[in-house]
């Protein structure tokens, strides 16, 4: 997999578009989770808008597709915006986020719209589902084995189920599985290092027989290099990309703050982002 400067610039540009879209959506909704939605945004953009992911609006029901599981369900505004920009559904419904009876639920529901691959809200469940799909893909695929990507938060690593699944993936040598931990260093009640410190992630995952890659999760080149490492990996272990990110990335007034987790986005924030991107 090669990526030129042009490709990276394109990804950066898309990130900007999606970032503005997500902030608009959160402002209209009046509630939501800007911290994680914005910290993980560059990772999700790299995943969906590069050419290695075998998932599109035509094959999203096929068993040949790659699976993307959003275990940290509260990051969903970013997923919704990306799927809409990818043409999975109409962009117009993005403004209905969190509104009554909208398919864009506050936390995603499986198959509510094309491309939504899991129900997420209760943390720690997505990684098990990803493992279930990954082992099935390995055992029952006739030709090319689909890849499975699963995005989790660093606060989510508190959940015991994550480690049950980590043990399962390592034991079963699910080398078609790529977990991504968005390490934005915050959770609702404080900094993750103060609430329940899960570091060092590398040592933990390595001891569960995982291949680990640590990167800057808001740097497109480094994210793409991490995915490249996973795709070129010839070993038998599952891979985890440990991505250091900044909570609320892009919206300077909330960046890195614990409160960015669930801070309501107002017109003030909207003006701020418009100023940054000179809209």
């Amino acid at each position, binding site marked *: 997999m090669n990526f030129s400067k042009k490709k990276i610039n394109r990804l950066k540009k898309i990130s900007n578009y999606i970032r503005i879209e997500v902030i608009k959506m959160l402002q209209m909704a009046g509630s939501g989770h800007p911290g994680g939605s914005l910290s993980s945004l560059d990772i999700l953009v790299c995943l969906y808008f590069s050419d290695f992911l075998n998932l599109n609006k035509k094959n999203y029901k096929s*068993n040949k597709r790659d*699976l993307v599981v959003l275990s940290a369900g509260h990051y969903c505004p970013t997923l919704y915006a990306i799927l809409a920009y990818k043409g999975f559904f109409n962009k117009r419904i993005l403004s209905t986020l969190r509104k009554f009876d909208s398919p864009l639920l506050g936390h995603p*529901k*499986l*198959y509510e719209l094309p491309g939504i*691959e*899991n*129900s*997420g*809200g*209760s943390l*720690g*469940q*997505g*990684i*098990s*589902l*990803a*493992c*279930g*799909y*990954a*082992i*099935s*893909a390995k*055992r*029952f695929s006739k030709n090319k084995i689909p890849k499975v990507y699963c995005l989790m938060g660093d606060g989510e690593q508190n959940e*015991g*189920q994550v480690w*049950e*699944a980590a*043990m*399962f993936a390592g*034991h079963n040598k699910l080398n078609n599985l790529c977990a991504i931990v968005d390490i934005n260093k915050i959770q609702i009640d404080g900094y993750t290092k103060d609430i329940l410190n899960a570091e060092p992630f590398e040592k933990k995952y390595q001891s569960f027989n995982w291949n680990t890659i640590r990167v800057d999760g808001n740097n497109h080149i480094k994210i793409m290099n991490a995915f490249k490492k996973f795709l070129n990996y010839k070993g038998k272990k599952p891979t985890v990309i440990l991505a250091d990110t900044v909570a609320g990335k892009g919206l300077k007034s909330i960046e890195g703050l614990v409160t960015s987790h669930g801070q309501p986005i107002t017109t003030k924030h909207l003006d701020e982002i418009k100023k940054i991107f000179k809209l």
Partner: protein
Amino acid sequence: MIKTTYDYGQAIIKESNQINFSLEFSEKQNFSSIRDAYAFYLKKILIKNSKYVLLDADLGTVAKTNDLKIKLKKRYIQVGIAEQNLIGIAAGVAQFKKIPIVQSLAVFLTGRAFDQIRESVCYSELNVKLVGMHSGMTLSPDGATHQTGEDISLISSLPNIEIYSPADSHQLKLILPKFLNSKKPSYLRLFFPKALNITKGRKFYHKKIQIIKNLKKINIISYGYMLQKSYETVNILKKKGIDCGLINLHCLKPLDYKGILKISKKSKILVVIEDHNQFGGLGSMISSYISEKNPTKILSINSGDKFGKTGLPEENLNYLGLSTNKIVSKILKYLKKY
């Protein structure tokens, strides 16, 4: 569509069968243990049908399905002692368009993994088959940690799921293919002790009430292992000159409300017997429905609001007021009062 009309004691068959496969085995197979029957019939079905995947959480030996590991090869997944992960893995298998069958002790499956069943299975509407072994209060030597007095309450509170509770091996044979063929998430509730095949030779309509003894003024409704105790109760009461009807329910969700309403209209007193906690079991379901539609006197006999003890099944049932003698005396006491 399954249509059934009731003529009380004698129901008339009017049903079209949508089942993809049925079990046609020699009638000589007459299991007294529902677990043995489950293991036997499951093997027959699974070996032939490649769409099913069997998942264990280190309790395959208890389910007596250990040899399936070799026969199913790739279609067998062992997840270890991790019920939460077990349900998540099953959901992922279902996403891959296979049908996962998940086995564990009823108490761990429904209790430990309740949130996973809620979000990854029921809310996601993924076709996962849950098999809860040793449900109820009869796995008594192991103590209350292994007994299940709350599974019906927990699972019935979840939308999109079906609950099947066969009363004996004969009924399991009828239900198992329907349970596996159902497009919805489903929970199959098995029990530990040996049981007489009481339902053998009785008319059976899928998801409908089953009349074991013709309706009288006093009618007993039960399910699962407690049908055994209810059957003995009816016989003892008959000797005392009190005639009771007996109804078995093999499907607790969706509940055959129409059938139950018709029974209530024929009854002076309904007695519901179950080895389940008093909250959220069949007694609760029937009481809340009947009190609205056709208020009838209902005597609910269950394990009350307490945990079981260790000891023999019969001893534990006696402690919980669910031995045949205790049930009979409870009914007699109620009849004196009302």
